[in-house]
């Protein structure tokens, strides 16, 4: 009974959370709670991998929740894949937190919520009826909200928490309507919905995009994500960005691929288009950020876009009865889900370690950290290389599979898709290139050059446990990039379930075959060996051919002759060309230079302004309307008791009169 084991994990974690609430102020609580949490998550990971290898489907009904209906659970291949993501992310984040959490100023506001948060995400994945799903989903939202506002002294965190909780409520509401539409017969179990199929597929898909998409961070519902993810402590940011967005993707897959039954190809157009726009705008937003964690959060938006493009292609291929291509696209999406959870957690760990060491997230105050934090720098570099989709790391492997699926779009019968998919692929290629540029900026300004502030100069390497967690994830990125075949094999049953087909079975040595051996293939191992070989060759050549003769010349000034360290090439300098080319259209970016009058000794001033049109057109009007109404209703808070009684009385009489007249 694997499903019992899979449910035992969340139960233990909830218990652990209660226990943690009582002891969290003790000195040993941090290590004990996170250590136990990591162990439970590792056990959950083992259960999930066993379920994937078995490939069986188990269901269970427990007499909890609503009387006589109970809670339904189901462990199938899709759920197992996401259980792997949740528990792997949870285990590594707990490990990182053993070290990171020691710097926490108020652990009682963080420690109890983390195990419960991981447990809620586990429950979402294994739930098999709408009530259980929404209950776990809402638990996940509320617990993560509590973590976002854990440092409530900072007004920005409170604002982030408010926007997050409003968006989370909106998303759950959309999902609730979505399930209500699908459960036309009044039976809210997923089994009934699966048998029934969706009556109004367009509406259901739109609601799934609104509900699950707002949690995942698709444009333009992403606005809360870059505010809330950075506000939380480092390991929680990693959990939210690396894991919770994936649970949202799971919700979308469960509804569109599993519960809705066959989906018309026209609906895939919307998914692909939204994914492509999300990917491009996500990376453009990221390029404009100078806050390291916010930059990473915007990259989550970008990667969610990539995943949605792949999912949309899988829907399109499935509708056209091209199972091999659909399997490729679905496997690519799931593999990217897994990969993104690895490298995004790794990068957020790095950002958390840097914040602990220097007290700032503003990359223009950092610099030169590669000398004081060499191991963090190496781990961050591996994560940055992976997210920039450079071989031989895992980001490249999954994005390559997405592109291979896009190349197969020529075999689709519909012209709309044959035009849209290559366009989306071109946009993805552009955003991958921009992501690489963004991480050159992030890594270069943070770790290279010279320290731009006293805090950055005084930085010390982070503790050993945190480094162990980062090393584990970096190792994962390398393994998944070098032998992607192992992972696509594991994803086979899930792909089988979603698209009735799976990718060809791969083994460690032979190259990854997306469709058939006469198409393109990719061998991460050969690329990795080639890269190592080339590096060794160049090193040897440099060693052999270098000139040992002494020369007299100026000392090399590292490219910045100015003594002022702030005059180094900054994040803004990196972003400027891209801001001029793309952001002037996307965000209405404008630059103004104010030169002082001749003979005036005042400094010249350079200002760059950006407009977030999604915020200004979509969110600001809603906020203004609510504010206006709240102001109008405000006097009702300060009436006399008799006035309240009078209002109730008059309202009752008016309603009754209305009823008497019209009934």
């Amino acid at each position, binding site marked *: 009974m694997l499903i019992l084991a899979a449910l035992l994990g969340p139960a233990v974690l909830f218990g652990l959370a209660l226990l943690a609430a009582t002891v969290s102020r003790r000195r040993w609580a941090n290590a004990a709670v996170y250590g136990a949490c990591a162990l439970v998550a590792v056990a959950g990971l083992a259960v999930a991998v066993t379920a994937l290898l078995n490939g069986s489907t188990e269901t269970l009904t427990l007499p909890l929740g609503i009387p006589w209906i109970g809670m339904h659970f189901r462990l199938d291949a899709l759920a197992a894949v996401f259980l792997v993501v949740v528990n792997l992310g949870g285990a590594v984040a707990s490990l990182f937190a053993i070290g990171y959490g020691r710097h926490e100023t108020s652990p009682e506001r963080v420690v109890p919520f983390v195990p419960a948060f991981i447990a809620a995400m586990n429950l979402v994945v294994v739930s098999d009826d709408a009530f259980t799903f929404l209950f776990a989903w809402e638990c996940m939202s509320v617990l993560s909200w509590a973590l976002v506002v854990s440092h409530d002294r900072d007004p920005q965190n409170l604002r982030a928490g408010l926007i997050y909780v409003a968006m989370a409520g909106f998303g759950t509401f959309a999902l609730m309507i979505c399930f209500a539409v699908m459960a036309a017969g009044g039976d809210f179990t997923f089994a009934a919905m699966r048998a029934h199929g969706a009556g109004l597929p367009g509406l259901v898909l739109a609601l799934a995009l609104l509900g699950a998409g707002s949690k995942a961070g698709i444009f333009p519902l992403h606005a809360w994500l870059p505010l809330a993810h950075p506000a939380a402590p480092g390991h929680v940011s990693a959990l939210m960005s690396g894991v919770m967005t994936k649970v949202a993707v799971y919700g979308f897959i469960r509804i569109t691929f599993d519960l809705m039954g066959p989906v018309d190809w026209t609906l895939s157009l919307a998914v692909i288009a939204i994914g492509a726009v999300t990917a491009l705008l996500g990376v453009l937003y990221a390029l404009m950020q100078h806050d390291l964690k916010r930059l990473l959060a915007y990259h989550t938006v970008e990667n969610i876009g990539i995943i949605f493009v792949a999912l949309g292609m899988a829907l399109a291929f499935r509708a056209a009865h091209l199972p091999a291509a659909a399997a490729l696209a679905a496997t690519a999406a799931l593999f990217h889900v897994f990969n993104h959870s690895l490298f995004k957690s790794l990068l957020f760990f790095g950002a958390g370690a840097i914040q602990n060491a220097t007290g700032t997230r503003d990359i223009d105050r950092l610099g030169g950290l590669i000398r004081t934090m060499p191991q963090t720098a190496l781990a961050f570099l591996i994560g940055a290389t992976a997210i920039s989709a450079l071989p031989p790391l895992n980001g490249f492997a999954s994005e390559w599979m997405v592109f291979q699926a896009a190349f197969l779009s020529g075999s689709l019968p519909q012209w709309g898709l044959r035009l849209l998919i290559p366009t989306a692929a071109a946009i993805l290629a552009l955003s991958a290139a921009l992501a690489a540029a963004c991480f050159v900026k992030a890594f270069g300004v943070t770790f290279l050059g010279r320290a731009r502030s006293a805090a950055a100069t005084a930085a010390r390497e982070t503790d050993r446990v945190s480094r162990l967690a980062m090393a584990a994830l970096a190792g994962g990125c390398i393994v998944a990039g070098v032998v992607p075949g192992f992972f696509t094999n594991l994803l086979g049953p899930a792909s089988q379930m979603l698209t009735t087909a799976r990718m060809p079975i791969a083994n460690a040595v032979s190259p990854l075959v997306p469709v058939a051996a006469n198409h393109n293939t990719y061998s991460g191992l050969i690329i990795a060996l080639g890269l190592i070989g080339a590096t060794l060759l160049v090193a040897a050549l440099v060693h052999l051919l270098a000139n040992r003769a002494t020369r007299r010349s100026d000392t090399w000034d590292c490219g910045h002759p100015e003594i002022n360290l702030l005059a180094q090439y900054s994040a803004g300098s990196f972003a400027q060309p891209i801001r001029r080319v793309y952001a002037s259209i996307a965000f209405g970016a404008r630059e103004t230079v104010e030169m002082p009058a001749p003979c005036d000794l005042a400094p010249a001033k350079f200002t760059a302004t950006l407009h977030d049109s999604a915020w200004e057109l979509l969110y600001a009007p809603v906020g203004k309307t609510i504010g206006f109404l709240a102001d109008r209703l405000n006097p009702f808070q*300060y009436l*006399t*008791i*008799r006035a309240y*009684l009078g209002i*109730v009385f008059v309202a009752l*009489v008016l309603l009754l009169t209305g009823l*008497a007249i019209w009934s």
Partner: protein
Amino acid sequence: MDTLTVAHFLAGSLVLLSFSLLYQDRLPPLINTFAAQSLVLALAIGWQAETQHAPHLLITAAIEFGFKTVLIPLVLTWIIRNLKIHRTVEIVVGVGPTILAGMALVGLAMALMMRATPGIGVLARQDLVFALSVVLLGMLMMVTRRNAVSQVIGFMSIENGLVLAATGAKGMPFVVETSVAFSVLIALIVTGIFLFRIRERFDSMDVAVIDQFRGER
């Protein structure tokens, strides 16, 4: 007299006593009138127990009699004696308009119930009309009175209307009637404490003083 006519007569008396509550401007007669209303209610419930062959309604009737006819009026009398407000005359603004408004409310209740409940007997429908009238008149009293004790009595007479409606309907679960009856007792305890606290703080029973304290008027 057939059974329904008696029920009808008792329910009608309740409405009449509600009207009488509206214009009592001294507290002891107000409490007495409330006790009389509760007594009539207990009789009405007892009659329902007889006609519906529902012995559990006798328990409700006993609760109503014990609490609302005896205990609550005694406690309220004790409270106003302790607070030394039993001789004060409350200025009831506009007795005439209030009574007219009360009549309009009864008309409203009649118009509504006659439309909302077709298909049951005329007398049973009029019972519901009376119950709704008692509720609405109680609310009217709460709105028009300024003295906290009068407001409490208005609240209790709303409860009387609710209990009348609950016992008049056949097959209403016993738990509903008893819980409504018990809720009044809880309300008495809370309001009793509340009244002493108001007096302690503001040296008056006029709720307008609380409004002044909150800084609005």
